[in-house]
């Protein structure tokens, strides 16, 4: 393995993301190459630093507020249909989704179209 090949693999080597064979090749190379040893150290430090990417400690008030908002919205909105209702919908004609117009039969006029729309809306 030469330095160019090692440089390509070092970011993954540092995080133990290489398969055994390639990891061994990189390992053998950095034992004899000072420049790549230095670069490997930098990647190792980058991985360790990433593990310190911590958010601030949020207060209990922050969490409680999120929970309160979520629970309020849940109470104000209809729940997702339960499983039996979902299964039921597979064998029943689909009702139009919220905000969508019911399906229309092209070329049909007058009372038939109205009947279709009425039937869909009732489901």
């Amino acid at each position: 393995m030469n330095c160019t090949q090692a440089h390509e693999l070092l970011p993954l080597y540092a995080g133990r993301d290489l398969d055994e064979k390639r990891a061994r090749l990189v390992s053998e190379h950095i034992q004899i190459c000072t420049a790549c040893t230095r670069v490997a150290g930098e990647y190792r430090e980058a991985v360790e630093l990433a593990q310190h990417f911590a958010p601030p400690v949020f207060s209990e008030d922050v969490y409680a507020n999120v929970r309160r908002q979520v629970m309020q919205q849940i109470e104000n909105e209809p729940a997702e249909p339960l499983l039996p209702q979902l299964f039921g919908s597979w064998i029943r004609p689909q009702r139009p989704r919220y905000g969508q117009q019911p399906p229309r039969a092209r070329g049909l006029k007058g009372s038939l179209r109205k009947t279709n729309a009425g039937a869909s809306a009732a489901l």
Partner: protein
Amino acid sequence: MALALEMPLLVDAPTSDPSSLSLLIERAANGDTAAFEQVMIHSEQRVMAMTWRMLGNEADARDASQEVFLRVYKYLGRFRRDQDFFAWLYGITVNVCRDFLKKRQTHSSRFVSFGEDAGDVAFEVAAAHPDAEHVLVQAQQRELITKAMATLPFKERASIVLRDVEGLSTEEVARIMKSSATTVRSQISSARKKIRVYCQQHQPGFGEGKAR
């Protein structure tokens, strides 16, 4: 905003007993809102941490976390028992954060917030601490990695956070990102290269202690 200098432990406060959590999930999926609230308590620290890491400020992290839990409630009926709940939760969190960043067109999917004064606050707190030097080094490291992460595009940031911060395997990250392990490895590699370059430019002597 208070800045913590110690790394918070992301152990979920109430209990980490998986059987009690799956019971709560099952009850919540059947419409038990009290059980759902407990599920939130079990997972809110992870979700807030993840949304903050992806979005870079507390206000957006709060809003995004709220949206995450609303989606969890909506789709909990589709969660399969053989799935890992937190992996499923991370999947929703990543999607919500992606949607959030899309809405923030001007930010071009990079987080820019991360309180510009965070470093100053850290130094003030560090100065008042008995082990000031150690705390100061930690604060500097946190500031450095936070700024380095801010330079990454969304997918690379999400992959590196899930892999290096949350400690998931490449395969798990790939499932969450709905991508292949090869693509995730490429994103992780690219992210680490950028972090290294950023740190080299902004911290003299970076990596010297690790060269063996």
